[in-house]
């Protein structure tokens, strides 16, 4: 059984073919990166996996189940978490509350129990809190634990969003440009965390990224896209040296 597999995935917006029959497979425990110039359809693939867009063609398999038969909120329940390119945090909540939302899929109490805040709710909340504190320790967020997200700098928000995705305890983590908007030092931290997520937490990572330095440091395999179609797949070095990739980024030699 394949861990995660995309087959002939495609979507058309009117006459624009944003993703054109892309197929790839992610093995359990690896870090798989999708690269490509602007408008290649990388984030669109993520939105297709998250079921935010309905695919025009193709299938997405996760642990043997076809994702396209589920609804968006069930994707998280299956164990797929994601971050967003432009950060989609809950702005007017604290970092702690943001991470606790990540625990939503592990919710065990019912509405009526919560209305009365029964001892079982208290116990469940303490367990959730403990799980969240592990993420806070892991990503070194203790300093900002009680700050409102609306007042935090961009770099920290990026980490909070990663933390929120980790709090769901995913099997597959989708990272949409984890280094965009970060300075070199923060990007360095991000690279370490992605390595740790893969090695120590055993989470499979599927990533969209532009920073080739980061890509070659953490990825096992890379897929290059251009204009919605896959043009090369292989190790970071192989893909970087691939003539079609060079042509997509730099154009043809005169």
């Amino acid at each position: 059984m394949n861990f995660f597999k995309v087959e002939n995935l495609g979507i058309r917006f009117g006459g624009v073919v944003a993703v054109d029959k892309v197929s790839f497979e992610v093995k359990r425990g690896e870090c798989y990166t999708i690269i490509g110039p602007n408008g290649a359809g990388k984030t669109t693939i993520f939105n297709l996996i998250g079921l935010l867009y309905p695919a025009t063609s193709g299938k997405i398999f996760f642990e043997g189940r076809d994702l396209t038969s589920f609804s968006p909120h069930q994707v998280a329940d299956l164990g797929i978490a994601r971050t967003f390119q432009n950060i989609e945090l809950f702005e007017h909540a604290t970092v702690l509350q943001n991470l606790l939302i990540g625990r939503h899929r592990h919710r065990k109490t019912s509405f009526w129990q919560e209305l009365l805040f029964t001892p079982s709710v208290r116990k469940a909340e303490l367990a959730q809190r403990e799980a969240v504190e592990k993420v806070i320790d892991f990503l070194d967020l203790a300093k900002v634990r009680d700050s409102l997200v609306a007042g935090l700098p961009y770099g920290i928000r990026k980490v909070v969003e990663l933390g929120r995705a980790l709090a769901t305890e995913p099997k597959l983590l989708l990272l949409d440009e984890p280094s965009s908007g970060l300075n070199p030092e923060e990007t360095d931290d991000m690279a370490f965390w992605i390595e740790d997520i893969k090695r120590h937490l055993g989470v499979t990572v599927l990533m969209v990224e532009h920073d080739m330095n980061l890509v070659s440091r953490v990825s096992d395999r890379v897929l290059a896209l251009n204009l919605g179609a896959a043009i090369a797949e292989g190790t970071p070095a192989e893909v970087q040296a691939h003539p079609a990739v060079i042509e997509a980024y730099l154009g043809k030699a005169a």
Partner: protein
Amino acid sequence: MRFLFKTDYVQDLMLFKHGGQVFWYGLLMIVLLAAPHLVGEYVMSQLHFICIYSIVGLGMMLLVGFTGQISLGHAAFLAVGAYTEALLQAKGVPFFISLPTAALLSGAFGWVLGLPALRLKGIYLAIATLAFNVIVEEVIARWEGLTGGNSGLHLKPIEFFGLKLDGDTSFYYLCLGLTVLATLGLLNLLRSPTGRAFVAIRDSEISASCMGVNLATYKTLSFAISAALTGVGGALYAHKVTFISPEQFTLLQSIELITIVILGGVGFIHGAVLGAAFVIVLPQLISLAKDYLPSNVAGSGLQATVFGLVLILFIIFEPFGLYGRWLKVRTWFELFPFYRRGMFRRQKSYMKSERLR
């Protein structure tokens, strides 16, 4: 300035964070319990209304302040609650059954209104709820066989296991008790997964859904709870005014209800109560002022004008409402002399993923 040292996760789950809060809320409770012995009949009557509007305000706050859904139709739920109560009482149903029924029926209506909210946002949702308000008002006015149409319905005092709650004092304790219960219930929800899901929907639907929050379930749930609380408020309102007719549940009433949350402070539980108090006290102040105004200004439109003006001024100058203002004043004193003007200003939010809307 108080520093809280946290040594246990339970501390974050407590309703009272420190002794000071226990003291002040305890004092408030004692004063409220002793109020019938302290103040006159007129003030008591105002306190009834403040309690009733607080319950409605809490319902509005859950929907508008915590789930981020607008509603210009809450007077309809008030009407459903009031008419259910009036009709059931006329049939001889005891109060302890008729009140929950009013809440449930309103809640069911709220659930139904929540369904379009799954597809509509912002101003479009406001229009849909507004239309709902007009429909309910119209149905009540036309369905004379059931509701008595424009001639309205009269209510008798509440009977509770043979005990008549006709006195001001006993009715006051009923309203106060229900207000406290509603507040506690809401606080409980907000510190547990359901409340967090509501807040998540308010701040970013797209990522709430990606975290596994079922938008349909939680949006309709929020509408249902909000409507149920408003229904309870409506039932109490019916008993308070003892006569109900369609013109009490118009769009203007809905606007008054949304004024509660905006004046009080969107997103604060305290805001619901402060807003309710303000909305009740303001008309009294206006009628006091009328004596000193020239007769052509002190017309019937004065109240609506002042309400509108206050609403606009609050939105421009104090979007956090009365409670937000109180927080600023308190911080000013706590930090004296180090308070800065921009302290509560929220940083510009970064660009959101427009494409996903």
